């Protein structure tokens, strides 16, 4: 009996470690796959891509709402000194500008019903600034939602989306 204690302990330690690592890595793994899928489907890096009206045939991510319009921007602030200039055009109905990091966390959301919203997205570790949000990770996704339950409001939201912006801003050259 005693000779099985060692293997049993190894089994339990391996099970616990694998369990913890799997849970810890799952969001980043799923987000990385989702970002790759979005890229494959034409969602641009550093530019908003408006998705078609959500239908069973056009849906791109799980649990999309057919009553909302979506515009997505993938970002990568890995280049030193870069930031992102983000703007959500004015729309008469409900709209929000939501930031998600590479761990799937919704680290900031700005509401903008009836008005334009502009903000800068700074790289991880940047000092906080007025009118800016610091991203916890280098890569992530920005998502604009606009209420559009019918064709008329969808057209209005699409018009508002023409003013959306997600532009990479180069920083000062790094001196050596």
């Amino acid at each position, binding site marked *: 009996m005693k000779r099985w204690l*060692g293997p*049993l302990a190894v089994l339990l330690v391996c099970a616990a470690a694998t*369990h913890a690592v799997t849970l810890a890595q799952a969001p980043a793994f799923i987000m990385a796959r989702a970002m790759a899928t979005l890229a494959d489907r034409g969602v641009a890096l550093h530019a908003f891509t408006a998705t078609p009206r959500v239908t069973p045939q056009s849906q791109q991510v799980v649990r999309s709402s057919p009553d909302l319009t979506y515009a997505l921007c993938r970002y990568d602030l890995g280049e030193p000194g870069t930031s992102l200039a983000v703007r959500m055009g004015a729309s008469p109905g409900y709209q929000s500008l939501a930031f998600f990091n590479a761990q799937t966390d919704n680290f900031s959301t700005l509401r903008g019903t009836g008005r334009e919203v502009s903000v800068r997205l700074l790289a991880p570790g940047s000092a906080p600034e007025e009118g800016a949000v610091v991203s916890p990770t280098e890569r992530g996704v920005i998502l604009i939602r606009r209420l559009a339950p019918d064709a008329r409001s969808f057209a209005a939201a699409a018009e508002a989306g023409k003013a959306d912006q997600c532009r990479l801003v180069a920083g000062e050259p790094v001196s050596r």
Partner: protein
Amino acid sequence: MRRAAVYLTAVVAGAALGLGSALWMAGLWPPGRNLAFGDVDVGGWRSDFAIGSKAADPYTRARVARHGLLALAKSEAVYLTRAVDDTGQPLREACTYRLSGAVMPAGWWSVTLYDAASMLPANTDNALSIDAERAGKGAWSAVIAPMRPDSAEAWISSRGAGRFDLTLRLYLPEARLLADPNAALAPPRIARLSCGDGT
């Protein structure tokens, strides 16, 4: 040599056990498990208000990453999901249901039908949800069925959905909903009217 093989088997079995238990407990495996989980349960509509935030436990974070990717934090929206009718039976395409509710404590709301893979069902009925604007003010109801009902009631199509669930989105939730969801929210009811297979 035999001793080494025993230890190697323990490592492989342990890793498999850890991987399988993590995926199962997080709702990632086997495929087809839904999002009806969490610490909030209002009349069978379940949610975890930590969705979208770092405060969510690792199981919730993993499950939401799979089934509710890019969901908003609770200050902007809360999501409640239900996969059973008022008698506790799983929701399925073969049956017809009446979904009914009252005024919601939020700026805007919708109820949308998703299949077991968390996707909109593959039909062309253009009847995937009901929302605050279509429901109007006060009490509201909709029929959930694979075919459009003869009545003029609002319709949510379950055609092609198989086993499905419903997600209630509450945008701009009132503070009282976040503080005490059971007191603030009158949960929509799901009455099973009939089933095509006679059950």
